[in-house]
């Protein structure tokens, strides 16, 4: 028997955690007419959130290479929600390339995904002039999108304010407020979610005016595939490692070498780029790496967690799933019992 919410007012809702999940929950519910209080323990917004480390690609089909199909299917819905909501979204597609000796990686990627268009060297040069002559083949996922993570988080926060919600940074979750609680604390909820684990990810931000990209580019590699996401202003996010460790200690030399030398292989202009920021975050994940919505034993808390690598991709889907549940009782497939 699936758990249900019990005797809890849903007119007034506290959303705990202002990462990508919490912001989307607060926004969708506030716009749906609920009275929302969004709280986060950090004084300074987003500093403790895994979301600030995100590549912020909305790439449901590319992600299907290493994720269950449900992530792809929900992700396609996520893309629709972002398109309908966020004016800063850039829908320029994703490019996937591989070095000549790693062409089997490109074929594998193509086989594992849908909606790819194969591009030859000329078509690649037309899309990204700075990559001209560097790769003989590419996969192009024209419908996919990206954004700057920091700008998107700030926009969402402002949109939550504008929707009439109360927002408190530097606020504690204790004592528990009255009414429904939506727990979006990510790794902060680890003690309440025994199956949650942390997966370390490292990324670098560099700046160079010597090259331009109009869209995220993924460079496949048998050991360390990378993505490079243009952020505007000549900035690029280079990410990301996936390591089964739960510490957010500073980036290791090995990871920095892997990421930077692969970026350099994508384009030599990265050799002269300035390093703006580098570091590590910890992604919250369930054993199947699929996020879920859980109704806690107290009957008045919903836990939305387990973003893994797909927080930006899936946050709007989970937010709408919760809003629909509160409105009609319909349980989206993301609702799970444990």
């Amino acid at each position, binding site marked *: 028997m699936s758990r249900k919410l019990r005797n809890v007012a849903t007119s007034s809702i506290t959303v705990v955690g202002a990462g990508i999940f919490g912001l989307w929950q607060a926004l969708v519910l506030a716009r749906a007419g609920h009275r929302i209080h969004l709280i986060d323990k950090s004084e300074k917004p987003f500093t403790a959130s895994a979301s600030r480390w995100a590549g912020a690609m909305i790439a449901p089909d590319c992600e299907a290479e290493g994720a269950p199909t449900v992530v792809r299917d929900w992700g396609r819905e996520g893309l629709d929600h972002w398109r309908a909501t966020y004016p800063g979204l850039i829908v320029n597609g994703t490019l996937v390339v591989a070095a000549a000796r790693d062409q089997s990686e490109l074929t594998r990627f193509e086989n594992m995904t849908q909606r790819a268009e194969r591009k030859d060297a000329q078509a690649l040069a037309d899309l990204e002039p700075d990559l001209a002559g560097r790769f003989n083949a590419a996969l192009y996922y024209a419908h996919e999108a990206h954004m700057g993570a920091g700008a998107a988080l700030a926009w969402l926060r402002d949109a939550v304010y504008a929707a009439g919600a109360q927002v408190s940074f530097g606020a504690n979750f204790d004592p528990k407020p009255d009414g429904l609680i939506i727990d979006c604390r990510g790794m902060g909820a680890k003690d309440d979610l025994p199956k949650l684990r942390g997966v370390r990810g490292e990324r670098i931000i560099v700046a160079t005016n010597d090259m331009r990209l109009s869209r995220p580019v993924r460079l496949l590699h048998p050991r360390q595939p990378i993505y490079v996401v243009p952020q505007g202003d000549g900035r690029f996010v280079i990410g990301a490692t996936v390591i089964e460790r739960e510490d957010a200690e500073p980036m290791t030399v090995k990871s920095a070498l892997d990421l930077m030398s692969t970026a350099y292989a994508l384009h030599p202009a990265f050799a002269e780029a300035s390093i703006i920021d580098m570091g590590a975050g910890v992604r919250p994940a369930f054993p*199947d790496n699929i996020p879920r919505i859980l109704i806690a034993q107290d009957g008045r808390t919903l836990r939305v967690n387990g973003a893994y690598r797909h927080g930006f991709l899936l946050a709007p889907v989970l937010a709408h799933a919760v809003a629909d549940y509160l409105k009609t009782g319909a349980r989206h497939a993301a609702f799970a019992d444990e």
Partner: protein
Amino acid sequence: MNVRDAAIHDTSQLSLYGQAIPSRILLGTAGYPSPAILSDALRASGVGIVTVSLRREMAGEKTGANFLKLISALGVRVLPNTAGCRTVREAVTTAHMAREVFATDWIKLEVIANDDTLQPDVFGLVEAADILTKDGFKVFPYTTEDLSVAERLQRVGCQVIMPWGAPIGTGRGLVNPAALKSLRAYFPDVTLIIDAGIGTPSHAAQAMELGFDAVLLNTAVAKAADPARMAAAFSAAVTAGRLGYEAGLMLPRDMAVPSTPVAGTPFFDID
């Protein structure tokens, strides 16, 4: 009689350092889409041993505790490895850390000479195997197909030797089967495991037909479109190859030999 006879269908049991092991496949744990899928793959293949990289995946006690918990919950034996170690000292230190973290004296010893090919540094390997064996470890050294290196490894106390089929992650199969054959012939009583390079179930079957005791693989399963089914495929291939080896494979002949005598066959030329 269509009754399945266990004695015919089951291979002899693998034993590693005196421990009976239920399967002749050892599986790496890196690169799966999720721990849940890794767990499905282990169940599908009946694998009894998994290797875990201590150095990268879980450096020390502070980290990766939950991933380790997930692995422990699968009820398989963990063979920690020293993947990524470039020097004897690094490998020995990592092995000692692994012994504490995983509470086992088994160690898959890797000392890597070249970052591009991940070729074993066989000189460092022998040195580290010597040190670790004297420290009480049961060493599983990852080596090349070189006979003289295998001899040294055995001399310093390794009861298991793990030659590569091809460089790690390439999926090229057994690139030097002649050398692997002579290794098998030269060390009839040493446990030999093909470690690395296995790309397809037929590669694994070939290794077993050559008389190797087990195969260790990772990428071919982890990166398959359906890892659990691929694990099942490898399991079937390893059983088939081993049964074939134990049943005594026929040797190739130069002359065609009809299964049924043709001399005197009636209707020989009738359309």
